[in-house]
């Protein structure tokens, strides 16, 4: 009698081919426990089966990379025996179902990825995307997600220092919550997850296991339909207080020298953590599931293996170190249990009160998970628009005012003021600039962090869009004076079984790879979130990147605010007036079309190197030009410094609005003392960087070619949108 019917197989999300492969690997029909394990291990979320083929093409190496993708997080060397460990991860689906807890547990999960490798978390970032502001669900989602991120991050005491927040109709049914954690470790004290040492104890610590989020990982791999809301009870609740204890206990345990390998229990809980550890170490495992600390009565082996209860860790101890480890957990009031041992069988044997309830071969299951070469079609590149293809029936000042008050361009202060962005006492560059800067404790070194994505470019031209994201993070890091070191990616897309979507995935990854290679800027960790679709409508392709840079002396860092009156304003990089796919076109003309601006990677490198060197030798005001072009960037500098500027529009430009609002890539604005401006322009030219003096700082107005608006009015508009929007719900 078979207990596994085709319906049960289907409920577990296995395709017919996958079921056949499963039978082949097992050599018999699996029981329900075993099927559950196959199901989560082979879910898109855990196996990357649609994206693996393409992820392999990304550059992951550089002399300063200590550990690339494949471990819990990526690691780079920042000198002085110090390492930065970081990763970004999505919690999209859970945050749509229960915004507060979904976002909160996203923060918890990404923090664990970082401290499980031996790092003390030093900052968090969050990249958020929601549906249109006037969609009925948006406010509720924004409110819950922001509160959840703050609720968790503030409580664990890790500053949330940067992020993004964008709105677009394509996210109406699928908001995106991408969280990044950055940690600091001693380069010679990093912990990995490969289990080793037959006979060594497998130890569990942290919270108890409950029936949380069972099948969360499979849920994250399925499209939403109207009745998905029925899946609600699987929502996990985060306990940031316990997470704080787990952080401290983990770091303390690491100092005792008792650890062979360690891994957090993330998606697919005990299953994926134990399989990954065993598979990496080439060992077998025997688990006594009845020893797992349980929150509820009557829990089954199936539930224990699949539960996604939060704040739990799995560790392989050196023999005889159990008491030392237990003493640490007792100090922090955490659960501690020896739940098994390593074996030489190469199998995962699950026992329940002495009886075998599951026996699976580890490597075939972990390594032979499916890899698909899904069919894809290249996204056709749209026509390039000329300035004359774009109507301009609004005056430049009105256009500027509209842009900076637009939901996608308005200040996100309402968000970051709900995040403790100063705790730990090293936030040297607070939110609101191009990159935030967190000082390396007790040194003068700083880590610059940013997260970026321009989904509208990626939609219109995935390849150029992919390049552009890399370049934008590179610029945001450079604009504060830091050297861009490495990137983590969080690839959010629709249903990969549709060839157009697969085409977006391929295009973006290729573009990202090309740019990272050209800029010597490797991808060291990442995460993929697919099936972000509701009833067949996918999100804009959103491959969010998080980047980390290093500045040797934080006192030299530049910021966007105008600081002194009468300085010359210099634009570095060439301004042609590219309006295709621009914010201007979208916001003022209601058109989301045209080819996005191309990125010249060789020029990007040259300009970046020049800007960085100039900041380190004294320039203190710098801003990259991105959404909304030159005019918006100038307005942002004026608002940040509460100081105006006067800009002369060159006589020879084809159209003033294109010059002001075009989004040509590879540009920065800096200010230099007026008497040194000509020499500076010469020097830039010698470095192969186009430089143009466009005006000067000073006054209380932003004056664009003779038309003026006060900085105070701009500020009201820019700062006003989000609080007003959110207040409408209160």
């Amino acid at each position, binding site marked *: 009698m078979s207990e596994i019917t085709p319906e049960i197989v289907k409920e577990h999300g296995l395709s017919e081919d996958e079921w056949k492969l499963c039978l082949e690997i097992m050599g018999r029909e699996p029981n329900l426990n075993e099927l559950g394990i196959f199901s989560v291990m082979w879910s898109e979320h855990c196996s990357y089966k649609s994206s693996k083929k393409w992820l392999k093409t990304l550059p992951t190496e550089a002399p300063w990379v200590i550990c690339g993708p494949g471990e819990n997080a990526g690691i780079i060397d920042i000198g002085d025996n110090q390492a930065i460990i970081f990763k970004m991860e999505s919690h999209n689906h859970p945050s749509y179902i229960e915004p507060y807890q979904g976002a909160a547990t996203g923060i918890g999960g990404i923090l664990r990825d970082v401290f499980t490798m031996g790092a003390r978390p030093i900052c968090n970032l969050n990249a958020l995307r929601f549906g249109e502001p006037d969609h009925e669900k948006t406010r509720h989602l924004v409110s819950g997600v922001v*509160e959840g991120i*703050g*609720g968790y991050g*503030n*409580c*664990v*005491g890790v500053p949330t220092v940067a992020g993004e927040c964008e709105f677009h109709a394509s996210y109406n049914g699928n908001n995106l919550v991408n969280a990044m954690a950055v940690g600091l470790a001693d380069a010679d004290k990093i912990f990995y997850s490969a289990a080793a040492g037959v006979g060594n104890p497998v130890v569990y610590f942290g919270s108890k296991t409950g029936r949380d989020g069972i099948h969360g990982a499979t849920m994250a791999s399925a499209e939403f339909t109207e009745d998905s809301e029925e899946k609600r009870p699987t929502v996990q609740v985060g*306990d*940031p*207080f*316990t997470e*704080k*204890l787990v952080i401290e206990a983990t770091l303390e345990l690491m100092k005792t020298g008792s650890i062979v390998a360690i891994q957090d229990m993330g998606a697919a809980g005990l299953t994926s953590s134990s399989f990954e550890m065993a598979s990496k170490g080439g060992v077998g495992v025997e688990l006594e599931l009845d020893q797992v600390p349980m929150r509820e009565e009557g829990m089954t082996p199936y539930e224990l293996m699949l539960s996604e209860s939060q704040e739990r860790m799995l560790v392989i101890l050196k023999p005889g170190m159990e008491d030392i480890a237990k003493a640490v957990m007792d100090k*922090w*009031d955490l659960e501690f249990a020896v739940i098994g041992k390593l074996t030489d069988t190469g199998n995962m044997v699950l026992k329940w009160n002495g009886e075998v309830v599951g026996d699976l071969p580890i490597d075939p299951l972990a390594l032979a998970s499916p890899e698909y070469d899904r069919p894809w079609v290249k996204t056709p590149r749209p026509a390039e628009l000329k300035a004359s293809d774009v109507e301009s029936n609004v005056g430049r000042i009105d256009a500027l005012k509209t842009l900076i008050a637009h939901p996608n361009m308005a200040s996100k202060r309402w968000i*970051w*003021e*709900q*995040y*403790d*962005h*100063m*705790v*730990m*006492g*090293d*936030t*040297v560059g*607070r939110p609101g600039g191009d990159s935030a800067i967190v*000082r390396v404790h007790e040194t003068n070194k700083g880590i610059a962090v940013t997260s970026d994505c321009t989904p509208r470019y990626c939609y219109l031209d995935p390849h150029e869009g992919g390049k552009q994201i890399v370049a934008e993070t590179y610029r945001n890091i450079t604009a504060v004076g830091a050297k861009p070191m490495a990137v983590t990616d969080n690839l959010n897309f629709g249903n990969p079984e549709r060839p157009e979507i697969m085409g977006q995935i391929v295009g973006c990854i290729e573009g990202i790879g090309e740019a990272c290679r050209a800029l010597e800027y490797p991808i060291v960790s990442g995460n993929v979130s697919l099936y972000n679709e509701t009833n067949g409508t996918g999100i804009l392709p959103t491959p969010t990147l998080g980047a980390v840079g290093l500045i040797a002396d*934080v*006192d030299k860092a530049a910021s966007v605010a105008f600081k002194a009156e009468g300085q010359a304003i210099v634009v570095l990089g060439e301004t042609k007036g590219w309006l295709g796919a621009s914010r201007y076109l979208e916001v003022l003309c209601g058109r989301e079309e045209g080819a996005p601006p191309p990125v010249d990677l060789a020029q990007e490198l040259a300009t970046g190197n020049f800007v960085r060197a100039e900041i380190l030798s004294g320039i203190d005001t710098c801003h990259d030009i991105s959404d909304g072009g030159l005019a918006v960037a100038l307005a942002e500098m004026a608002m940040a410094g509460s100081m105006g500027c006067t800009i002369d529009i060159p006589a020879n430009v084809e159209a003033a609005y294109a010059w002001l609002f075009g989004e040509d890539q590879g540009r920065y604005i800096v200010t230099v003392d007026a008497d040194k401006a000509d020499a500076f322009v010469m020097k830039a030219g010698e470095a192969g960087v186009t430089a143009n003096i466009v005006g000067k700082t000073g006054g209380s107005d932003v004056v664009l070619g003779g038309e003026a608006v006060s900085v105070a009015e701009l500020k009201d508009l820019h700062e006003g949108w989000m609080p007003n929007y959110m207040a409408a719900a209160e």
Partner: protein
Amino acid sequence: MKAAVIVFPGSNCDRDMLVGIEHSLGRKPEMVWHKETELPDVDFIAVPGGFSYGDYLRCGAMSAHSPIMREVVKKANQGVRVLGVCNGFQILTEAGLLPGVLMRNAKLRFICKDVHLRVENAETEFTNKYTAGQAIRIPVAHHDGNFFTDDDTLAALEGNGQVAFRYCDENGNVNEASNINGSRNNIAGILNEKKNVLGMMPHPERLCDAQLGGTDGKPMFDALVEALS
């Protein structure tokens, strides 16, 4: 000055406080775990911010029962200077060292930003390096900082010079608009009757270092160091 910082499970500004004190004192204070039953011989105790016990039930409620708090109360009653910041302030009220309670912010949201405080009493060992009426810039980071107490207690606080700081604008005006969390009389920090215990929601320890954007918090620690050496 011999200083100690109390560490509860869930404290997270303990390191901020350590560094803040170190800036003025020139050496690190002692860190004391909440399960200790005795305090070292100190003349200054700081109860730092954070989310002790997750702020579950009520902020500070569970920490107020930690073994070490019995000692802190004892020392405070003997005249040792005690500073509670943010969660530390909440703990001191729950432990009965200061009157009133800190309720949920009026707008119910967590607030993290620099605010201005008017120094109301500049004649204490905590505040004598400021001048009365001076507006100082100090960050806040809290969810429950809405100071509440009954009318009688409020009148007593006001009458005895126990109000140390009030939320104000950058020019020192105390008004509705600058009351970030709904506190009665814009109160940001209060003293006990003997003026040796100060509780405040804003974080002076976070602005003692120009690299972090300001040093308006430093005079408080300078004043304590001077008074206690």
